[in-house]
């Protein structure tokens, strides 16, 4: 799996820091690879370092050990082939939807017309055409998160990182956005790493699900979902995988509390 052709490869990544004189190890020896067009779910109890892992990959934090490579090339710091969607939409309140989506193109060498065309295309793709000139405070939570997804996609990265992107939304909206994400993924052939604490979300979206355990954060196990899309949410195989995941997720935390 750890071949140069992998869209993203994480090799023995570790992260620790000193907090008030005590050494805290957040991640230890995390290794996995994501191939082109693959969706990987990352599951784990809170505090297992799953958000930290994404911050390292997107380049917000450069202090770590190990190797992170995008399309075979080692990367440290922001990389235009990697985009991130945060749990909160993080739209700039003083920019319209078009302005916010366009932010991701500011560092790119494109003509004004190309930029405008791309912005319109991705705003359409997330279903916000009617709100392209709206300011964030005029959007609902779901619309704002869609705009954030458009902002992440507009630079056409190879890898989309998502940190509990639907965690703040109500459950019905969450299901709808999951399906929308799959529809967009189907068109763009992008690799996605989605961190979540929702087992069903990880299983419904992911080709594989990586389960992290905490203290320090490390890979506990990897589950191959092995179901064709479109998937049924009530697929019997899904139910058994869910039971399996639940046991695995609960096991390490049970060990922590005992």
């Amino acid at each position, binding site marked *: 799996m750890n071949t140069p052709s992998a869209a993203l490869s994480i090799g023995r990544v570790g992260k620790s820091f000193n907090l008030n004189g005590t050494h805290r190890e957040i991640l230890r020896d995390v290794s996995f690879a994501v191939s082109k067009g693959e969706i990987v779910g990352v599951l784990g109890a809170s505090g297992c370092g799953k958000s930290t892992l994404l911050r390292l990959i997107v*380049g*917000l934090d450069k202090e770590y050990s190990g190797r992170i490579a995008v399309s075979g090339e080692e990367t440290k710091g922001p990389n235009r082939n990697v985009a991130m969607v945060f749990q909160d939409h993080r739209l*700039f309140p003083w920019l319209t939807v078009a302005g916010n989506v366009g932010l991701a193109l*500011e*560092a790119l060498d494109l003509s004004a017309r190309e930029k405008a065309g791309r912005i319109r295309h991705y705003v359409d793709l997330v279903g916000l055409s009617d709100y392209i000139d709206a300011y964030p405070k005029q959007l609902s939570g779901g619309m704002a998160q869609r705009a954030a997804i458009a902002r992440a996609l507009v630079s056409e990265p190879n890898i989309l990182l998502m940190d509990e992107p639907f965690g703040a939304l109500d459950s019905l909206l969450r299901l709808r956005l999951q399906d929308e994400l799959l529809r967009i993924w189907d068109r763009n052939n992008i690799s996605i790493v989605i961190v979540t604490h929702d087992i069903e979300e990880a299983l419904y979206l992911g080709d594989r699900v990586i389960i992290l355990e905490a203290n320090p954060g490390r890979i506990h196990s990897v589950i191959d979902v092995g179901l064709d899309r479109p998937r049924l949410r009530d697929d019997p195989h899904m139910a058994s995988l869910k039971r399996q995941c639940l046991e695995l997720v609960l096991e390490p935390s049970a060990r922590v509390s005992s």
Partner: protein
Amino acid sequence: MAEASLPRILAAIPKGAWLPLGLLAAWAIAAGSGVATSPLFVSPLEVLRVPFADPDGREVWASLGASILRIAGGGVTGALLGLILGTLCGLSRVASLGIAPTINTARQIAVFAWIPLFTAWFGNGETTKLVFTALSTFFPIFLATERGIRSTPKALEEVAQALGLPLGKRLLRLYFPAALPTIQVGIRIAVLSAWIGTIGAEYAIGNGRGLGSFIASARDQFRMDIVLVGVFFLAVGGVALNHGCERLFAVLFPWAKE
């Protein structure tokens, strides 16, 4: 007929206008009845004709213009310096540690205490007045800019970082818009203190055109009517500057309205 409309006229007078109107009436009565007979005591009517009919009084218009030019020249210089240094200190911890303590200490000196120093350094002329106006504009703008830039939400900074926005774009799209409400408060204070500073410097130095020196020379000639006209223009000028700024904000930054 007259009795019917008088209460209506009285009712139309805003409540805030009663006190000044009352004082004006008391002044007119005192002057007209001969109660106050000092040569320094002039009637409101005499004051009213000064800016139009009196050869010395007509100077008030040119003085007003000179003061406005001065506040524009010195104020804009001070504001730009405050913006640049404030931005630098807001963005860079090193710059802040190096520069801010000096500025914060200098700020504790009452602004008018600088006049003797400035006249020694720059002479008794235009330069001193401009430098003084610039100084009284600089402090509030510097403080507001530094605080505003520093209060930029960390979450949005991370978005800009992950998108790889270059510094220029980051200033334009992130830091200035985030700091703008705070900078606006600073500008409001700065306009007021620049106006006071300009008039104060003109008054203290005494030569050349300007409302401050206009009032000073009228006082030296015991022309209370001209002094009062000067004071009135000073007040109106301050209010007009304040309004002008608000209008400018509304045009430049329509999204910043509360």
